[in-house]
């Protein structure tokens, strides 16, 4: 089976090539079959591969396939080679499976769009890049996938490029992730200088021998890689691009948030876990960034009015949880949360897309309402997704994955109370805004008439994802309840187990607190937005609350901050340098040449006698030199 590994990224690539070359001339049905079919085929191959992997895992822990040598220079030889171990398998399963569902959904969702082929070509390339990223067994190939993902996000966020705001959002996503990418490639250079290889297994093997724990170089490398991850995964302080990235079509948002792109940072850190373990400083940095991000983004999510921006901030927040888990060394928990989050976030975005489509492109949740009965299927699936986001105990996948993170935030060796409090506060906020979203959109009186019904090609993926959002958590139970840990059994081949503190109190206490906090969040949301709306009315009249609300609505004013810190000084410098000093140098050379040319042109006056006089002067000069 593993000799067909290359097909997994190659099929979407094939789809991309076909659609970008011939898409203009194909019928929409053919385009849909090509676009969605290639990704579905990849998903099928992945499932077969996964079954084989679980039945009969390879001795080395990974399937590898070397395709060809890409390039070599000096000591560096870079092959195009793929490797699939348990960690990669989780990622490619999520990417291809959820990617396939999103593609199927898009065939109906984008049906009326003019650029149907361009959409599917970009989506296929997106999936292909992300697959390359996670399947690469050397960092150069990984970086290729990394940049490919960045490129496709740019193409898809700016998909409706006629609106300037969309192009602006696409540019913003590209620029900000580029900051992280630059840091990351510097990290790769450092890594190559130190270890002389970019082959991931070799790096993981050599790093502990080469570096001492807490070495400055390894800390620097880890922090640079982290910066790359922060850019792609929209963590503080590089998170500002993600809410604006909602400019793209809803399936694109689903793909970016669930399966591809934003989880690349999580993958990178999990994949390079040895380097991070060697540097306690960078581990703490990861954890603190994750914790602060989840809180900051959660607060912003509470007050947003655009349905997709709420989901965007919630993604930042949920990825903050994953970073927190990575930072405290709970690698498995982070990957598990990625796994469940992918299902419910894809579901929420696709359902939100259906709602927006049905309400004639209405994004404001306060202009929705009362959709509970008119959009039955969407309502039920959205409910499953939101419940999972809010981590409703035992019945949703979100609970199973978030609960270990909350526990490890305190109990792991790197964990402490500060991280735990932020995580618990985040849990409260998440439950609150999930409730708010559900109540405002689906209950209350109807404000916008519902358009056409959602078609079966759109509802089928929603139903599958809704089932997964509920059931995906059951593959891994908290070990104090039922000892069933399918995921971590396999992941432990790749990722080390979490190191716990000594003399811990019972885990039940923490689970109890988490459950209570979740229900408190639900209740607060219920009170504020359903049973007792007068409180909210009171806040609306208070100037202080309005200031807080507007501050949070603008995402803690990070855009304004960056504007003052970076954009304005830059513009100031450019204004000073309006008459480009350095260009002066070059235009000066050109101007001098032109002047000399003018001078010499004067001698070229067409007069024969003048030329002869020139010759005579030359002879005189030469003979005088002879005499001297």
């Amino acid at each position, binding site marked *: 089976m593993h000799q067909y590994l290359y097909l997994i990224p190659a099929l979407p690539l094939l789809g991309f090539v076909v659609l970008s070359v011939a898409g203009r001339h194909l019928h929409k049905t053919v385009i849909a079959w090509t676009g969605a079919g290639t990704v579905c085929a990849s998903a099928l191959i992945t499932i077969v591969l996964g079954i084989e992997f679980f039945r009969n895992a390879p001795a080395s822990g990974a399937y590898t396939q070397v395709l060809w040598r890409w390039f070599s220079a000096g000591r560096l030889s870079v092959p195009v080679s793929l490797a699939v171990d348990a960690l990669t398998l989780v990622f490619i399963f999520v990417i291809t499976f959820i990617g396939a569902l999103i593609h199927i959904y898009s065939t109906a969702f984008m049906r009326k769009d003019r650029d149907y082929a361009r959409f599917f070509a970009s989506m296929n390339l997106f999936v292909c890049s992300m697959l390359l990223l996670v399947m690469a067994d050397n960092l150069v190939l990984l970086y290729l996938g990394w940049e490919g993902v960045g490129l496709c996000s740019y193409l898809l966020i700016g998909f409706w490029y006629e609106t300037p705001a969309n192009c602006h959002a696409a540019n913003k996503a590209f620029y900000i992730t580029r900051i992280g990418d630059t840091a990351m490639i510097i990290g790769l250079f450092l890594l190559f200088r130190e270890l002389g290889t970019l082959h991931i297994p070799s790096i993981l093997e050599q790093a502990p021998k080469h570096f001492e724990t807490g070495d400055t170089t390894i800390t620097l490398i880890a922090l640079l890689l982290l910066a790359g991850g922060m850019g792609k995964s929209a963590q503080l302080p590089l998170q500002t691009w993600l809410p604006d990235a909602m400019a793209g079509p809803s399936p694109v948002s689903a793909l970016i948030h669930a399966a591809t792109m934003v989880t690349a940072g999580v993958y990178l850190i999990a994949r390079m876990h040895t380097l991070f373990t060697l540097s306690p400083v960078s581990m703490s940095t990861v954890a603190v960034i994750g914790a602060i991000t989840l809180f900051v983004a959660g607060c912003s999510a509470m007050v947003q009015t655009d349905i997709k921006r709420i989901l965007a901030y919630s993604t930042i927040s949920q990825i903050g949880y994953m970073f927190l888990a990575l930072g405290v060394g709970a690698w498995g928990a982070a990957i598990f949360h990625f796994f469940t989050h992918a299902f419910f976030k894809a579901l929420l975005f696709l359902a939100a897309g259906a709602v927006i489509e049905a309400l004639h492109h209405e994004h404001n949740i306060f202009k929705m309402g009362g959709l509970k009965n008119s959009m039955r299927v969407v309502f039920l699936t959205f409910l499953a997704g939101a419940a999972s986001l809010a981590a409703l105990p035992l019945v949703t996948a979100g609970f199973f994955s978030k609960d270990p993170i909350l526990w490890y935030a305190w109990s792991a060796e790197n964990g402490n109370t500060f991280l735990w409090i932020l995580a618990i506060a985040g849990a409260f906020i998440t439950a609150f805004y999930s409730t708010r979203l559900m109540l405002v959109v689906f209950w209350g009186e109807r404000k916008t008439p519902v358009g056409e019904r959602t078609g079966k090609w759109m509802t089928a993926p929603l139903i599958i994802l809704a089932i997964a959002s509920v059931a995906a958590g059951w593959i891994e139970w908290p070990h104090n309840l039922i000892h069933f840990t399918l995921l971590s059994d396999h992941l432990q081949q790749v990722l080390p187990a979490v190191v716990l503190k000594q003399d811990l109190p019972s885990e039940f206490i923490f689970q109890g607190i988490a459950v209570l906090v979740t229900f408190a969040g639900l209740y607060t949301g219920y009170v504020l937005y359903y049973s007792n709306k007068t409180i909210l009315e009171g806040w609306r009249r208070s100037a202080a609350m309005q200031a807080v609300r507007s501050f949070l609505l603008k995402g803690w004013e990070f855009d304004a901050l960056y504007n003052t810190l970076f954009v304005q000084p830059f513009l100031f410098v450019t204004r000073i340098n309006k008459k480009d000093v350095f260009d002066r140098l070059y235009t000066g050379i050109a101007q001098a040449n032109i002047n000399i040319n003018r001078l010499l042109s004067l001698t070229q006056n067409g007069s024969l006698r003048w030329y002869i*006089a020139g010759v*005579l*002067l030359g*002879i*005189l000069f030469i*003979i*005088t030199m*002879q*005499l001297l």
Partner: protein
Amino acid sequence: MNLLFYISSFVAVAATILAITRFHPVHALLYLVVSFLAAALIFLSLGSPFIAVMEVIVYAGAIIVLFIFVVMMLNLGKDTALQEKNWLRPKVWIGPSLLVLILLVEMIVLLLTAEDTAMHVTVVDPRNVSLALFGEYIIALELAGFLLMAGIVGAAHIGKQKKKQLHRFLQAEVMESV
């Protein structure tokens, strides 16, 4: 022989000065013939009778005749002389003459600083000249043949009397200006 050299040198210089200062083209050409004949005598005194003969035939004969034909064809007469008189004013010729004088002084100084030897005039007869010409210089002779050929063709082409001819670049300019 020595006397012959000195006299003919004097005549050559004097005739040349007159040739370049005359206003009337035909006068100038006549002095030029004198200069060439004097030069032929210098060649004779240097022991090169063949060259002396060639000087008389080709320079004083053929080339001067060509000039005279052109002067006749263009009917350059008193008008031209008058025009030349107007053009040749002291302020026109003093500057170049001074420069050239400096050049002459420099050349003479250069010559005099080098070692000098007396001339032992021996006649080198045409036989030796033609042996060298058709022996070691045969390729140069062929090339000279090419040159003359090109000269004939070129002269025939350029000298053709046609209506006003302009190069194609200049034609475009004229079209624009019109």
